[in-house]
């Protein structure tokens, strides 16, 4: 690390002009959770994604939990999730009392495929009709092959936590599943600190979601409801960033193409994308033979990198590594580089220079 150069963090939120004023105006209004700004944020994301209903909640995890509840995932139900995913996905399933059925991923894309899902269902001795829901994330902002997965005939929850702005077959992700969930955690495409949203065009599912988060002032108690609505303060921050998403995507595309040039020149393997998909470059992931060694060398130069997933989920629940060869490979090889709109050209050059020394 050159003296004077600061550390390049793996993630950094991009705060756009107007954000502070937007939040301040909500603070000064005295209505911090009244829902007026939340409803605007919901409509604006719906208009972007092409859906009819949005329900903004306090985190991506809460959004996924709510989506599963609204799809009537009940205790004992089977829910397929990919093993190469964050623990929040597993938690949402177990919070419903359902059984997670872990599917392997394609090590080239880090996404599940219809084959890995089919194998997972068979491994559990189940048939497709026994499975209530499949949760399909678009890992690192690269769309999963949802049209193929749809052929299995199981309702899909599209996990767009990392994928705002990514496209599949010319359509922005978020409207491919029965329900989709978004995350606005601090490191995500847009940040509300913590936050998330359920998106759906299904009237009944939307109504159930709204009912499940109406946690007080009810005529009758009909079961547990959840204090999940996102505050107007957080939504104001989200609203300020939404119009900038296209500019964010353009900047991420530019940085990704610089990393791509480097990877091609040095024959470094990177995660590949489906031919009919346009990633949002939420992450730029290298597939390294010596992942930990490369990470250490970059760290020495002040470049923070991370594995895209801390640990595959089958490792937590006693799954056999042989059943998940794709995820095992990803666990060993995948390394995510800093990529975000506020990453400067100078910082991009530093990352590439450091990679040149490390690889």
């Amino acid at each position, binding site marked *: 690390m050159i003296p004077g150069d600061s550390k390049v963090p793996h993630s950094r939120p991009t705060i756009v002009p107007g954000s502070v004023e937007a939040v301040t105006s909500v603070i000064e209004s005295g209505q911090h959770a009244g829902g007026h700004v939340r409803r*605007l944020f919901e*409509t*604006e994301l719906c*208009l*972007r994604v092409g859906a*009819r209903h949005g329900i903004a909640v306090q985190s991506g995890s809460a959004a996924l939990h709510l989506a599963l509840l609204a799809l009537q995932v009940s205790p004992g139900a089977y829910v397929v999730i990919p093993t190469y995913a964050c623990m929040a996905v597993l938690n949402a399933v177990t919070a419903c009392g359902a059984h997670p059925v872990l599917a392997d991923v394609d090590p080239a894309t880090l996404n599940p495929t219809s084959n890995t899902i089919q194998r997972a269902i068979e491994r559990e001795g189940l048939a497709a009709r026994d499975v209530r829901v499949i949760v399909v994330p678009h890992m690192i902002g690269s769309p999963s092959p949802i049209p193929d997965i749809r052929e299995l005939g199981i309702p899909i929850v599209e996990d767009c936590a990392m994928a705002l702005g990514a*496209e599949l077959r*010319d359509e922005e992700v978020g409207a491919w599943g029965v329900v989709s969930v978004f995350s606005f955690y601090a490191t995500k495409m847009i940040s509300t600190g913590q936050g998330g949203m359920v998106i759906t*065009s299904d*009237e009944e599912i939307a109504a159930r979601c709204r009912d499940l988060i109406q946690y007080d002032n009810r005529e009758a108690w009909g079961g547990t409801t959840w204090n999940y609505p996102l505050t107007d303060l957080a939504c104001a921050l989200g609203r300020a960033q939404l119009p900038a998403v296209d500019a964010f995507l353009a900047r991420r595309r530019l940085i990704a193409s610089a990393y791509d040039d480097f990877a091609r020149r040095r024959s470094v393997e990177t995660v590949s994308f489906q031919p009919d998909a346009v990633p949002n470059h939420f992450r730029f992931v290298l597939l390294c033979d010596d992942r930990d060694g490369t990470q250490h060398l970059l760290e020495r130069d002040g470049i923070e990198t991370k594995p895209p997933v801390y640990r595959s989920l089958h490792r937590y629940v006693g799954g056999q590594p042989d059943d998940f060869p794709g995820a095992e490979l990803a666990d060993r090889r995948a390394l995510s580089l800093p990529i975000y709109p506020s990453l400067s050209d100078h910082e991009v050059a530093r990352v590439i220079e450091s990679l040149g020394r490390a690889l």
Partner: protein
Amino acid sequence: MTDTSATESSTSTSGRRIGGPLLEVENLVKYFPIRKGLLSRTVGQVRAVDDVSFAVREHETVGLVGESGCGKTTVGRTLLNLIQPTSGRVMYRGKNLFDATASDLRDLRRKVQIIFQDPYGSLNPRMTVGSIVGEGPAIHRLGSKAEQKERCDYVIDRVGLDPSIHKHRYPHEFSGGQRQRIGIARALAVNPEFIVCDEAVSALDVSIQAQVINLLMELQAEFDLSYLFIAHDLAVVEHISDRVLVMYLGKIVEEASAIDLYRNPRHPYTKALLDAVPNPDPRQRSERALLTGDVPSPINPPPGCRFHTRCPSVMDKCSVEIPPGFPIGDGHVSHCFLEENE
């Protein structure tokens, strides 16, 4: 005519209960004459709307989409009797708008309102907001003066403005979004049942659009309104509409529920229209089914299917016969011969 006369009620957006038919448009035709010379002889006709039929049910929002010049606005204005049709009927609660007596017409003019696209040009600059909003209730003599004032204050408040301050101001003192709210308050003031929203959010910024869309949806629930939502922004129409009609060169080419139309477009024009939403990524642009060629002149529209001159799936009969509506199911209808053998 398609599944527009259904009388049973159903539930749609936001749990609204959609009722029976409110407005039924039957074979509506509007040709504008082209006049020339000293004697203003008619030398041709602009076929703005040509044999259009559809219905709007109680509490329902019907979207009407299409390119500029396809006849959307002419349809909307004909429904308000602002333009006399060449032929056809518009039945409002069973009464033909064009045969109505003066007294019926007065009542209909109260029940059917319009919100215009241009929030700058559609408000009289010499009138205060209070006068603009209060004019309708006064003309229709809705209650006493005090009740009219109360109603006026209520709707101004309901659209998010402060009656004690704003009703004394003039339109030029407001932003675009606020002026559109004034237009909405003016429409609401006479307690309407049906509102034509003619590109009502098109001139607004995205963040203001969401405010006005949410307001329209809240008002629909509160006042049991039905909307004909005319727009060229497909995302807005998808979000707000229960059913969508797609128009091309004066004719409806496809009709379906909003979800079905956007998930499963059948007419080649609808597909092209949905594909025409711009993609910021230049690498993806070449793969889209973009429309080629110009829109033909409505003065001399192509025979047969009006879209055949630009259609990627054109067949011989398309240039000869006008395709009837082929039902696809669940009220989804496509006017395209591709459906004939499906």
